[in-house]
């Protein structure tokens, strides 16, 4: 029995040294690696000091990425209330890594965020229209709020009429959700829109994607 274990360990060590570079450089390889681990019931991110993370440096990679994600979210929280699309997060993280850093995929971000979530940092992932919104500030969002966020994703704003027409809710229920989003700092009120009040979410305001993190925002990110 132990001879087999030894063989297994040797093979693993060989595998580890051969592929350590790949893991750090190649996002697709990381996905395949994670899938492979899942198949045999191993979570390489389960503990910072495990064999896998030490041998392969996988833990370090996601740990560092997690730190970067937190920095970006802190810097932009002032603008978007702690809600950011996966796309914008991805863009900002890539920017922060510079030209010569390893490539980072959206899948990498999701894994890192799941790790952060498990550590109890208040992160959560909200699926909206084919992508995700990442919440970094533990605002209280229930199903009603999340569903309205998904509705807002298309145009960056939502109205009481939109909610009533699409979700078939009563006016009061719609208003309560919108009031809550205002209260949590996730939405801003626009009284000059045609027809009725529009509620805009900075997190979904596509134009923002092209904006640099300002010096003020960078300062806010420092502890």
């Amino acid at each position, binding site marked *: 029995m132990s001879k087999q274990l030894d063989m297994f360990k040797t093979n693993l060590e060989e595998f580890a040294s051969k592929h350590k570079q790949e893991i750090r450089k190649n996002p697709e390889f990381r996905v395949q690696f994670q899938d492979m681990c899942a198949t045999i019931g191993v979570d390489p991110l389960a503990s910072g000091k495990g064999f896998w993370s030490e041998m392969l440096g996988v833990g370090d990679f996601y740990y560092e990425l997690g730190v970067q994600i937190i920095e970006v979210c802190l810097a932009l929280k002032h603008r978007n209330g702690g809600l950011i699309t996966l796309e914008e997060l991805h863009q900002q993280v890539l920017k922060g890594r510079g030209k010569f850093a390893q490539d980072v995929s959206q899948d990498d971000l999701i894994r890192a965020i799941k790790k952060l979530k498990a550590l109890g940092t208040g992160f959560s992932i909200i699926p909206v229209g084919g992508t995700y919104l990442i919440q970094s500030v533990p605002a209280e969002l229930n199903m009603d709020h999340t569903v309205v966020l998904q509705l807002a994703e298309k145009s960056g704003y939502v109205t009481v009429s939109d909610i009533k027409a699409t979700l078939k809710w009563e006016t009061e229920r719609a208003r309560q959700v919108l009031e809550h989003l205002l209260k949590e*700092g996730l939405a801003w*009120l626009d009284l000059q829109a045609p027809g009725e009040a529009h509620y805009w979410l900075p997190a979904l305001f596509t134009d923002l994607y092209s904006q640099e993190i300002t010096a003020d925002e960078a300062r806010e990110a420092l502890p």
Partner: protein
Amino acid sequence: MAMSFEWPWQYRFPPFFTLQPNMDTRQKQLAAWCSLVLSFCRLHKQSSMTVMEAQESPLFNNVKLQRKLPVESIQIVLEELRKKGNLEWLDKNKSSFLIMWRRPEEWGKLIYQWVSRSGQNNSVFTLYELTCGEDTEDEEFHGLDEATLLRALQALQQEHKAEIITVSDGRGVKFF
């Protein structure tokens, strides 16, 4: 004229032109407005304005976005600037104001630093010399408008670092 001016992201965000009901959001909004007003006026070298001008200026009226900050909200922004020391009402009716992207005390400090650096304490200058003279060409306060300059010198006067005096054809200042 506004070509090289870079509008902040908020300027293209429709709700920026509605006074926000949430107090935390409103604070951020007002801070952004104050910042925008000061950089706009600085770039356009505008040291004074009437409220009527302000209402129609691209500063508060984003024609492309079809949003304009209502006059009551403009008044709130102006009041914030006044509290911070960057704005002074020029009349009792609050219809026109002086806007200073740097507060008078800050300008005073810069001027006094130049005076000391160039060893000109106890010298007398005309206001013109200070802002338009050759000697000050490289200084930030070169080209400063008279109203702001006077307030800067008044701030120094309060600190006993200067005295505004009358000279042959107008006003001048003596530095200590």
